[in-house]
């Protein structure tokens, strides 16, 4: 193999200009593809981080059937021992317990159906950074008997900090639930659908309201690295067994996931076109190279070199060329990605305002993740192998007599 590498490397040096042009075309393709993907995925990463860390989380654990029928028939008991047992993976950053249900909220002459979330303030604030969204008043304390309202809901019910919220609902095991809660604070939630209907209570207060002692409806699982989502979901599902359902955000926020898939997919189509052009570039170079060296390859076959070995030699040359382009492309893209990862593009004007309203930072950061950078390299290598198919067939069909005829 060493001999092939040596010959392949020297062959690349034979027509330096052509080698440089082909390497440059691969370099630019990898550079643009990597940077484009870095921003494209960076936007989504930012969006998902904001959306998922505002409430849903990457993973949720429920009693089996809860996702389909969100009612108190699908609660499960929860204590610290169970929590410890669930730390099955080092990828799990935190477990955030919730008791979630619905209620009819009222103030004065106005009523509105609302989502009630019973939360553990310490854990919830660490996960969803709720305090950063506080618009008025103060956050709930661990033993607080009051409520935290979303801004639009408070506006609709004409409630201010210090006012009293009245809620009625159906509690655990068919009991009636009714309570009054002083408004401690108002938060501005990113998504309007949440901002229109959220009421936060502390977990003990919610349990008391719904007569659901020690029960939970939801356990949000926060991950250290989102790329471990499927793996962690599988592990948890295995540990918990069939009485529980472990759902990823893709299963819970299906519309968002579809949007993500179609957007990322259309990005891949564009990349595919870019790579197709590069593929033809490599193919053209290869065919030119083969044509120029027809006599030489004829001599090699004549003196006893197996066509298989000639094919390996040609392939080594092209793979070396591709590798060179890939490495240089990634080397050129990395500083750009690093810079924009640490110094995101800051948006201004209406776009920035819209993002801020949705609770998102008005900036586009570049995603810096080895996975997709590696994929660019693999894509170019795959294209190289595809471009090699016909030239390799040509080598196997090479007739030494014809090749030696000038």
């Amino acid at each position: 193999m060493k001999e092939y590498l040596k010959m392949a490397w020297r062959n690349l040096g034979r027509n330096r200009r052509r080698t440089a042009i082909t390497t440059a075309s691969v370099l630019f393709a990898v550079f643009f593809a990597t940077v484009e993907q870095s921003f494209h995925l960076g936007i989504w990463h930012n969006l998902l981080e904001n959306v998922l860390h505002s409430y849903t989380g990457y993973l949720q654990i429920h009693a089996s059937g809860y996702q389909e029928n969100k009612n108190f028939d699908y609660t499960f008991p929860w204590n610290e021992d169970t929590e410890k047992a669930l730390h099955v993976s080092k990828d799990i950053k935190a477990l955030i317990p919730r008791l979630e249900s619905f209620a009819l909220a009222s103030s004065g002459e106005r009523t509105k159906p609302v989502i009630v979330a019973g939360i553990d303030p310490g854990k919830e604030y660490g996960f969803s950074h709720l305090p950063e969204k506080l618009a008025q008043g103060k956050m709930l304390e661990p033993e607080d008997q009051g409520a935290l309202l979303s801004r639009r809901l408070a506006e609709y019910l004409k409630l201010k900090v210090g006012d009293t919220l009245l809620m009625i609902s159906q509690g655990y095991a068919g009991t009636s639930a009714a309570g009054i809660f002083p408004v401690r604070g108002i938060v501005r939630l990113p998504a309007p659908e949440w901002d229109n209907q959220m009421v936060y209570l502390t977990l003990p207060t919610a349990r008391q309201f719904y007569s659901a002692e020690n029960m939970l409806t939801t356990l949000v699982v926060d991950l250290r690295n989102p790329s471990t989502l499927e793996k962690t979901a599988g592990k948890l599902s295995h540990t918990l067994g069939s009485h529980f359902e472990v759902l990823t955000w893709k299963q819970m926020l299906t519309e968002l996931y579809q949007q993500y898939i179609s957007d990322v997919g259309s990005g891949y189509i564009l990349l595919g076109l870019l790579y197709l052009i590069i593929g033809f570039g490599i193919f053209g170079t290869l065919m030119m190279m083969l044509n120029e060296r027809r006599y030489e390859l004829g001599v090699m076959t004549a003196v006893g070199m197996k066509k298989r070995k000639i094919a390996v030699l040609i392939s080594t040359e092209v793979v070396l060329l591709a590798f060179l382009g890939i490495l240089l492309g990634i080397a050129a893209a990395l500083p750009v990605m690093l810079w924009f990862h640490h110094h995101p593009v800051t948006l201004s004007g209406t776009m920035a305002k819209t993002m801020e309203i949705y609770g998102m930072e008005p900036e586009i950061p570049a995603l810096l993740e080895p996975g997709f950078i590696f994929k660019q390299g693999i894509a170019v290598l795959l294209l190289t192998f595809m471009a090699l198919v016909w030239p390799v067939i040509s080598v196997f069909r090479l007739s030494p007599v014809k090749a030696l005829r000038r």
Partner: protein
Amino acid sequence: MEIISLKNLTKTYREDSIEVTAVSDITLSFAEGEFTAIVGPSGSGKTTLLNLIGGLDAPTSGEIVVNGTNLARLSSSQLTDFRLWNVGFVFQAYNLIPVLTARENIEFIMHLQNKPVHERRKRASELLQAVGLADRAKSRPSKLSGGQQQRVAVARALAPRPRFILADEPTANLDSHSAENLLEMMEKLNREENITFIFSTHDPRVMKKARRIITLEDGKVLRDEQMHK
């Protein structure tokens, strides 16, 4: 001792729907240690005959037996192996691998034969010495003159100690001095190492050195003469 035997050898090509008979019903044999020139005008079938003997091309009919092996029965891959282990080729010109040095070119076929490095090095040094190019071992073909390139080509052909060497107009692109030197060198190797040389040529200098001259015309043997030297 006979090493090559051709029996009723015929080769026809089809070019633009016209059938061309390049070699027609040739029966010949070659003994070990021969220094033979195949001569004839262009299109007489010299190169085709060499290609057939070297297993580069397959006959339309007839038999080529080399050391008891009938080449017509070998597959393409077996023919490649046959060429690797039995035949040394010298072509008209530019037949060295341009990215390899003179020494690496000589070692190339031995490398294909998976000969150990030390053996390759030793043989290449011997041959570089024999062809008078020991001081150009590290030069690439582009840095060598036409005559020097052909010397390296002969050394490469000799490196794996083949049974015979087929040289297709080896002096065609050389000046008279280089051609003379090359011929003397090949004659010496033939005399001292008993290597069989079969040339195709137009060159009177080659014919002068040859001990046997086979004249072809229209794909047929016109004369087969032993020259007494």
